[in-house]
């Protein structure tokens, strides 16, 4: 299958800290790639570079043949097609659940109000929160907020979904409800780039696991191989900590 996301020689520093030191990665359409690694390994920075929330110092990223990193890139158009889910949910607290979802379709995609509401209803059903349409974000549990955030991203009908530690801020009993939604999405063929240490999700839904350390990709393999017979010593040491 053809490459969908192409990352070449990605380099990024924050002051004196080198977050990415030359990362190459290509993701095929419909592929679910899980990125793991110790904190500070650059995995979130890599993910955030894909929709240019971080700008690379050098290197290039393209999605479906369209450059993300060039200065003249139509980044707003690209972001419309790249959904993102954050660790801290980032729901808009001044808007109801429904308005959180309909806002971007209405004002960015210029859909009619009715159409946007229709989309919101369908997606809330999908994430199992049909009864929360009129609720405020602060009235929801963390797991519910994150599911709304996923619905909000899906409302733009994205080609790619980025997940930046989507369950790290959640209590254990809420993690499953979010992972279930993500697993469904993976089964439907969504192209997904996920920064997470959820090994259950890795085994159930990921096609490939990328292990990053110190701004570089150390090892990549399909989940069954990755967990049973990692090649690199660094990977083995990390897996001992999280498994």
């Amino acid at each position, binding site marked *: 299958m053809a490459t969908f996301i192409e990352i070449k020689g990605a380099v990024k520093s924050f002051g004196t800290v080198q977050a990415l030191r030359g990362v190459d990665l290509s993701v095929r359409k419909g592929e679910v790639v899980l990125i793991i690694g110790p904190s500070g390994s650059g995995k979130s920075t890599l993910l955030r570079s894909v*929709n240019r*929330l971080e700008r690379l110092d050098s290197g290039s990223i393209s999605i479906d043949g369209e450059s993300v990193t060039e200065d003249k890139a139509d980044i*707003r*158009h690209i*972001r*419309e097609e*790249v*959904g*993102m889910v*954050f660790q*801290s949910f*980032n*729901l*808009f*607290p*001044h808007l109801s659940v429904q308005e959180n979802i309909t*806002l*971007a379709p209405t*004002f*960015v*995609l210029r859909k009619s109000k009715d159409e946007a509401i229709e989309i919101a209803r369908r997606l809330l059903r999908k994430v199992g929160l049909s009864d929360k349409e009129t609720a*405020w974000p*602060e009235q929801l549990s963390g797991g519910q907020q994150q599911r709304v*955030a996923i619905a*909000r*991203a899906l409302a*733009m009908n994205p080609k790619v979904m980025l997940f930046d530690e989507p369950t790290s801020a959640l209590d254990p009993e809420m993690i499953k409800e979010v992972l279930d939604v993500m697993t469904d999405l993976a089964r439907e063929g969504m192209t997904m780039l996920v920064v997470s240490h959820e090994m259950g999700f890795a085994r159930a839904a990921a096609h490939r696991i990328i292990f990053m350390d110190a701004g570089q990709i150390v090892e990549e393999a399909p989940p069954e191989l990755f967990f049973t017979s990692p090649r690199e010593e660094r990977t083995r040491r990390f897996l001992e900590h999280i498994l």
Partner: protein
Amino acid sequence: MAKASSESGRVGKAEHRTTINVTDGTLIPLKDEGGGLSAWNISFFGAIGLLVLLPILSPDPYLRILAFVPDGLVATFTVTIVSIVFALIIGLFAGLGRISHNTLINRISTVYVEIIRGIPLLVQLFYIYYALGPLLKMQGPPAAILAMSICYGAYMAEIFRAGIQAIPKGQMEAALALGMSRSMAMRRIIIPQTVRIILPPIGNEFIALLKDSSLVSILAVSDLLRRGREYASTSFRYFESYTVIALIYLVMTLFFSRLVAYMEERLRHRGNVH
């Protein structure tokens, strides 16, 4: 000239909602502060009591003074309200400028804030009315409003800046990730949340401006203080005239500070203004 300043206002998180605490000169009465004998109750009802009692006990001159000053009250409110509206507009743009990534805009806004906050309001009033008078050819009231707007615009700018910066960075990122432009994200996501947290400090500025508006009496504006002065200078009843003027200012500022406190309370409980 006490100013409820925002640069000393610390930004913190309370009950999952971000608030700005403006530290100096708390005009806003706190809830549960002494019940019926709270400082606010004593001052407010004491002042009202005096304003009712004095004219009854001694109609000359108190009743005469009370009849003489309402014109000034209108002028005071006109200057205050028009100035606060312009100050808010200036403050919004200067505040956005203060956080702008555009170096030129950022520098212009910051220099404006620095200069204006470094010069006493009274000097600014003199400057616009007398020093720039030949150039601007403005009457007292418009000159007063111009000076007050420019001055308070700088303080408002800092409130807007602090308010916008108090919104978690993730809000802007989430908006951008959905394909919104920076300005749309500001308009639809950041500013609506900012308004909620800056209303109390803006209310504070309004009260400060109401008090500072007494300075415009110097520029031939017949505001409350000037009317009092006019009465005093013709009747030689200085003590009585200025007592009434002081009591009227006190009643007004205490009333508005209670209003601000009420507003703050409501915003805290049910955050969603719709």
